[in-house]
């Protein structure tokens, strides 16, 4: 892994040429750089020195050789000229000596001239040697001087020389001399010219050297300058750039950007540093990304946990919200922490308005005795201190002044060992209380209704015992006792029927029935006698077409006779009861219309409930049990039929029974109802 990362991060320099230099150690690079510059300087110096030395040598050559030569030549020329003048002098002296006749003197002079000439000649030879001459001139001069000397010797040895001869000799010598002089001068001049040319050449060479030196020094200086700049740039490039790059990347990495690597091209110390750095960076990155990954994982874990928690919370909230019981959570100081929807609607308060506020300022409770329940005296404090759940029944007075009976359980919320609050669960017992009340009322009423005929029977029997004449008693009271007994039986039947209907064990056994005939018989046998007693009229118009359908005759008889019975009971004397029968939309409708006391809209809503009696009905007739309409509703439910009422208080009522054209059979576990009699 490390190797791969390293390799990946190595960026070799594009130029292969620079690579070997770049790869050198910085110390070596610096050494090479400075060494090169010093070398350049030394080279320039050496070349300059060499050039100056050459110039100097040339100068030396000129001063040591050419100039003395020239001087020698000058000397030679002057020597030659001196020889010529010596010869002239010699000739003149000889001529003079001869002329004067002084042989001896003449000879001396000649010898003297001869010696001078020899000396001059020797001197000349030395010069010649010095100038490296080819001795041609010397030979010429030497031969000339030799012939001159031979002439002179001949002249000296010949004493008999006359003036003419002497003149001839002198003339010859003169001629010879002039010729030699000419030759000598030519030769010396030629030498001089040569020497001058040589010197000129040397001088020219020196000038050239100087120029070359100047140019080469200039060139070298400029080249050195460029090379120096180049080298400086190169070395700064090789050394400084990676450092700058390193610095830039460092600051980026310091900011957490690990994507950048130090691009180094050489394996010098910086390269190694960069490698180490990149390695460190990648390690850091790995560490960082490891950390990041861990952080991400942890964050994800936290998120998952949070999500889970939220889901759980939502579940709990939904759970709390969907519970029919009211729930209030309080903190240890009795402030409301939360309450659910049921609690809101039951207590008529909103969570938003009461959250964080003291429980007692919003929820005022009364105990079963109707006295205010003070939180301070409340067993709630026991819940806190003794950590025991309590159950109590209390009354809450709502804003609309209606009472709410609540069965309340209060339990502590314990976190570890500490009580952190309490939770109160309460159930609206109002309905139960109402049902209880209705039951109590019913039992009271039912027992009253049962006691009443029983009282009659009891007293009648006591009278029979007391009376001496049983015949008189029988005429007076026996029929009363029978009616009372029947009333009681009917009431007991109703009670038993309700019990059977409530437990859902009613048998339904339909038989084909002509409904018109069925209702006619019911009116004739059961209703008409009662109607007659109150001078009431029952109107029933049989439909033109027979309506034949399957009904459970006992059950439908019970329904119709019960409704007719009510119609008769709650109507004044002489009123009319109208019974209708028709087929409508695949159903059969039987309607019982009266001109009785009617039922208010409000009472209509509860009319078919068990034990419900309207106040009007109760005041009109005391014998009702509040069970008849409930029984009708239950019977029709079992027969898939319905019952409805249309009524106005004081304007009479119309009850409409709707039954299906075919009643389904139900015999399993079936029980039969006790029949109803119209009274």
């Amino acid at each position, binding site marked *: 892994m490390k190797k791969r990362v390293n390799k990946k991060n190595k960026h070799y320099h594009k130029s292969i040429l620079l690579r070997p230099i770049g790869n050198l150690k910085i110390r070596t690079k610096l050494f090479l750089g400075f060494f090169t510059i010093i070398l350049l300087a030394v080279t320039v110096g050496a070349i300059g020195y060499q050039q100056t030395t050459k110039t100097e040598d040339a100068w030396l050559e000129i001063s040591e050789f050419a100039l003395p030569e020239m001087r020698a030549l000058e000397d030679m020329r002057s020597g030659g000229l001196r020889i010529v003048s010596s010869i002239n002098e010699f000739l003149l002296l000889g001529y003079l000596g001869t002329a004067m006749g002084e042989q001896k003197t003449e000879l001396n002079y000649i010898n003297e001239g001869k010696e001078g000439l020899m000396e001059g000649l020797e001197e000349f030879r030395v010069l010649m040697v010095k100038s490296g001459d080819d001795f041609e001139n010397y030979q010429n001069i030497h031969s000339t001087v030799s012939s001159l000397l031979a002439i002179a010797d001949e002249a000296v040895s010949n004493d008999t020389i006359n003036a003419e001869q002497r003149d001839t000799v002198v003339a010859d010598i003169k001629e010879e001399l002039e010729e030699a002089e000419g030759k000598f001068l030519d030769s010396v001049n030629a030498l001089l010219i040569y020497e001058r040319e040589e010197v000129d050449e040397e001088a020219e060479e020196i000038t050239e050297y100087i120029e070359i030196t100047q140019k080469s020094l200039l060139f070298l200086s400029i080249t050195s300058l460029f090379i120096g700049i180049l080298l400086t740039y190169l070395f700064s490039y090789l050394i400084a750039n990676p450092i700058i790059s390193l610095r830039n990347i460092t600051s980026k990495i310091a900011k957490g950007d690990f994507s950048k690597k130090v691009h180094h091209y050489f394996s010098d110390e910086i390269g190694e540093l960069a490698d180490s750095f990149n390695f460190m960076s990648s390690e850091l990155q790995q560490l960082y990304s490891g950390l990041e990954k861990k952080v991400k994982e942890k964050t994800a874990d936290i998120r998952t946990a949070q999500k889970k928690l939220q889901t759980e919370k939502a579940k709990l909230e939904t759970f709390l919200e969907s519970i029919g019981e009211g729930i209030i959570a309080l903190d240890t100081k009795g402030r409301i922490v939360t309450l659910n929807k049921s609690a809101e609607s039951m207590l008529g308060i909103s969570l938003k308005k009461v959250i964080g506020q003291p429980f007692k300022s919003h929820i005022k409770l009364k105990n079963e005795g109707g006295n205010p329940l003070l939180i301070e005296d409340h067993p709630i404090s026991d819940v806190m201190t003794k950590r025991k759940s309590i159950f109590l029944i209390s009354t809450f007075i709502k804003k609309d002044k209606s009472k709410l009976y609540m069965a309340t359980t209060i339990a502590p919320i314990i976190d570890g060992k500490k009580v952190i609050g309490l939770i109160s669960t309460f159930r609206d017992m109002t309905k139960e209380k109402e049902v209880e009340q209705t039951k109590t009322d019913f039992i009271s009423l039912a027992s009253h209704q049962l006691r009443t005929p029983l*009282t009659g029977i009891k007293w009648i029997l*006591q009278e029979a015992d007391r009376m001496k004449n049983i015949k008189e008693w029988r005429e007076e009271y026996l029929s009363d006792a029978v009616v009372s007994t029947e009333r009681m039986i009917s009431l007991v039947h109703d009670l038993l029927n309700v019990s059977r209907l409530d437990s859902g064990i009613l048998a339904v056994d339909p038989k084909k029935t002509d409904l018109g005939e069925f209702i006619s018989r019911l009116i004739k046998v059961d209703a008409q006698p009662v109607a007659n007693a109150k001078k009431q009229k029952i109107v029933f118009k049989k439909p033109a077409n027979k309506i034949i359908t399957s009904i459970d005759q006992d059950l439908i008889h019970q329904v119709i006779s019960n409704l007719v019975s009510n119609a008769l009971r709650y109507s004044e004397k002489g009123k009319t009861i109208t019974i209708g029968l028709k087929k409508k939309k695949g159903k059969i409708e039987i309607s019982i219309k009266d001109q009785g006391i009617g039922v208010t809209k409000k009472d209509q809503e509860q009319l078919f409930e068990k034990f419900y009696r309207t106040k009007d009905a109760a005041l009109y007739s005391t014998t009702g049990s509040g069970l008849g309409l409930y029984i009708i509703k239950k019977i029709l439910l079992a027969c898939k039929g319905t019952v409805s009422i249309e009524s106005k208080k004081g304007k009479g009522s119309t009850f409409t029974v709707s039954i299906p054209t075919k009643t389904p059979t139900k015999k399993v576990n079936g029980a039969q109802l006790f029949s109803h009699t119209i009274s």
Partner: protein
Amino acid sequence: MTKKGKYILIAEDDPFIGKIMETTLAEHGYKVDRVTDGAQALEKIGSNEYDLVLLDLIMPVKDGFEVLSYLKKTTNETPVIVFSNLAQEEDKKEVMSLGAKGYFVKSSMAMNTLVGVVNNFVK
């Protein structure tokens, strides 16, 4: 016999009970009027001076409670004894608070006990 001239009103909706009470008390020498609802009872009390009213509670038109309340309201001091088949303690309390002189559950008393109660009261 000894109670001649004592005038009693029976307010009872059950025809058989009312009838036997009326007959029996008449046999014991009382002058008896009988009505079958509370409204009639108030009407009778308003127009006659009764020595005692035997009042049923569950009656049509106006029940016994209403009759008692009305009497209390109008400060009519006609003595009333309640004979009812309501056997709840609350009913007895209410009745007594409305000024009744006694409360009896009919089914638990014999006919001659009733006569005895009336005799005792009007003596």
